[in-house]
């Protein structure tokens, strides 16, 4: 059976949903975007333009949930399916939008540049348990206005996997969509085989900015999948109780569904989030907190009660280094996410409250993801009954190392980590250099970067992408890009 984590009784799920609907009806949601307010008003929402507030009736919410796809698929740059975001299927993707990197060569936490984005994409390309790429690093060596589109350009040209990304402005969406269309050949081909998921974040409490609400509408109209990233902070910008935080998360997320589905019924949307238990001593948002991870798994249950595909920022660490804290927080999150069956798990590689990516940590997290995915597959009999013949063989041969049963099931039954996770005996470990976890991970990073080969994109596609990116750079006042595909 597939092991399944449950944190909420069915009755409690129902009550949280009912309370969230009541909040949306009575308190409403602020939408600082006149076009989106008009869209809501056109479909019967009560709108107070003076306070930019929309009050969402239950039937609007019901229609949105009914028209939202109960699952959808992602495809790599070649159009091959990589994700089935439905049911309890789990996929991992690096944590997104770090503004720093922990430089594995110097040990320094610093601002990232183009080379970091490229190396990140190359390492992601090599890791099978990391199913999607992410525009995980915000490059600091380009104009701010293109730091979103440029990282997408770099990812698509260095990693064949679909990308979890997002636009930082209303204007950026167009070129990001065009980059994706360039890879697929047409907008309809892109809609048929989605290549990216855009994060769209409401602002707690109960607010949509002009940019994120417009991004949500634009993505929906282009049939580009989105993930709704509600970020209530327990005890600060949300009730201190986990249930109270869940009510707020539910209200914010449902408001996103209403906007997306009114813009384009049937638009693919992930029921996602990045809530946190606010730490009232350090004024920080610990992603490794057990309560943060409980809120993640609980809102995923609420999303699943509506039949929706889910996403969460979980499996990250707040540590500043690749240390024991990084390992334990990331392992706990990835394990819980896998047991809960969250469809898209954003986290690997991330440190320091979602602000710092580490390639070495990404490699270690990849092995953690392997364990978590194995755990989620559970225990099933495989040619195990009747048992006696195999035991007769064991006694006859003295071992089962080369038995047909062993060879048939070894690889599927056991997730073999390494080389970041060490399983050598002491003597072998010493002989192989007595390397620390970080040193082993560094070697892996360097190996993957050396072995990288570019994704198979036609020359004319790459040229078109570069043309689009250079035009966007000029729009942002940048003469030339730090890197261009030659």
């Amino acid at each position, binding site marked *: 059976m597939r092991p399944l984590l449950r944190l909420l009784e069915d009755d409690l799920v129902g009550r949280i949903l009912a309370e969230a609907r009541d909040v949306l009806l009575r308190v409403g949601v602020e939408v600082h975007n006149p076009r989106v307010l008009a869209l809501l008003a056109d479909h019967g929402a009560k709108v107070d333009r003076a306070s930019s507030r929309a009050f969402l009736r239950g039937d609007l919410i019901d229609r949105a949930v009914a028209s939202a796809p109960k699952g959808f698929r992602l495809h790599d740059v070649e159009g091959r399916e990589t994700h089935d975001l439905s049911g309890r299927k789990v996929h991992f993707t690096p944590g997104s939008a770090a503004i720093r990197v922990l430089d594995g060569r110097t040990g320094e936490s610093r601002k990232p540049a183009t080379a970091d984005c490229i190396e990140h994409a190359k390492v992601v390309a090599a890791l099978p348990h990391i199913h999607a790429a992410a525009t995980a690093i915000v490059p600091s060596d380009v104009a701010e206005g293109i730091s979103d589109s440029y990282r997408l350009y770099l990812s698509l040209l260095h990693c064949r996997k679909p990308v979890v990304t997002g636009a930082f402005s209303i204007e950026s969406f167009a070129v990001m969509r065009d980059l994706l269309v360039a890879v697929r050949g047409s907008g309809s081909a892109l809609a048929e085989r989605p290549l990216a998921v855009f994060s769209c974040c409401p602002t707690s409490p109960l607010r949509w900015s002009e940019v994120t609400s417009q991004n949500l509408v634009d993505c929906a109209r282009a049939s580009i999948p989105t993930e709704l990233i509600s970020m209530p902070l327990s005890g600060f910008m949300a009730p201190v109780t986990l249930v109270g935080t869940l009510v707020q998360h539910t209200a914010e997320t449902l408001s996103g569904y209403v906007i997306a589905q009114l813009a384009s019924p049937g638009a693919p949307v992930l029921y996602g989030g990045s809530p946190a238990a606010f730490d009232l001593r350090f004024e920080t948002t610990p992603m490794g907190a057990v309560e943060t991870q409980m809120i993640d798994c609980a809102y995923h249950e609420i999303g699943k009660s509506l039949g929706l595909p889910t996403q969460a920022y979980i499996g990250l660490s707040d540590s500043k280094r690749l240390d024991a804290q990084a390992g334990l927080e990331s392992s706990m999150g990835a394990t819980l996410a896998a047991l809960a069956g969250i469809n898209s798990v954003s986290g690997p590689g991330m440190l320091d409250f979602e602000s710092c990516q580490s390639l070495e940590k990404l490699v270690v997290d990849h092995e953690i993801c392997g364990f978590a995915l194995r755990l989620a597959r559970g225990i099933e009999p495989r040619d195990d009954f009747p048992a006696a013949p195999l035991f007769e063989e064991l006694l006859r041969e003295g071992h089962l190392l080369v038995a047909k049963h062993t*060879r048939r099931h070894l690889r599927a039954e056991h997730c073999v980590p390494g080389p970041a996770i060490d399983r050598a005996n002491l*003597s072998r470990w010493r002989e192989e250099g007595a390397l620390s976890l970080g040193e082993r991970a560094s070697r892996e990073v360097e190996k993957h970067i050396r072995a990288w080969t570019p994704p198979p994109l036609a020359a004319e596609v790459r040229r078109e992408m570069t043309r689009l990116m250079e035009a966007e750079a000029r729009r942002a006042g940048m003469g030339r890009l730090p890197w261009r595909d030659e």
Partner: protein
Amino acid sequence: MDLLREIASSLETGDDERAAERTRAALAAGVAPRVVLDEGLVRGMEAVGARFKAHEIFLPDVLLAAKAMIAGVEILKPLLEGEGMPSRGKVVIGTVKGDLHDIGKNLVGVLLRGAGFDVVDLGRDVPPERFVEAAEREGARVIGMSALLTTTMPAMARVVGLVRERGLGGSVRTIVGGAPVSADFAREIGADDYGYDAANAVERVAALVAR
């Protein structure tokens, strides 16, 4: 040539039937037995060993490769007798006196055979004298001892002592291994070497006979 590559690849896929069949085909095509051995079977085994060392494949893959290697060697044996059997040397192995654990020792035996060594397996609970007598009688180059219990490890020291007493130190090397055994222990008792696992033991034996 292709046939030799196919022999090597049959080891990598652990296919003993194909290894034997391709060995016969190579001989029928006029390839010298020594070339079949060195450039087909041995090369295949070396590739498997390297991949195992790099953590790319599993122990069963190595054992199956060894089995395929032996299938090929059996065919070559009668043809190579004139120019000396393709043995890298004889190794006497056993689990020491008082110890009944032989899984590790058996594994070393299979891998040694796969690597082209002649193996005389004395079994388990082997008294020190039997190790030394067998080595003398068989003209072995190496004695390999295994122990799983800390209480039986001292028997290894007695074997090493006997080898010295009988003046065999120049011709017979000793190597020890097993879960509680360490390189430090090997040094303490004066053994010539220590293998930290079965694959490593084969490498060490190869180095000992090459000295």
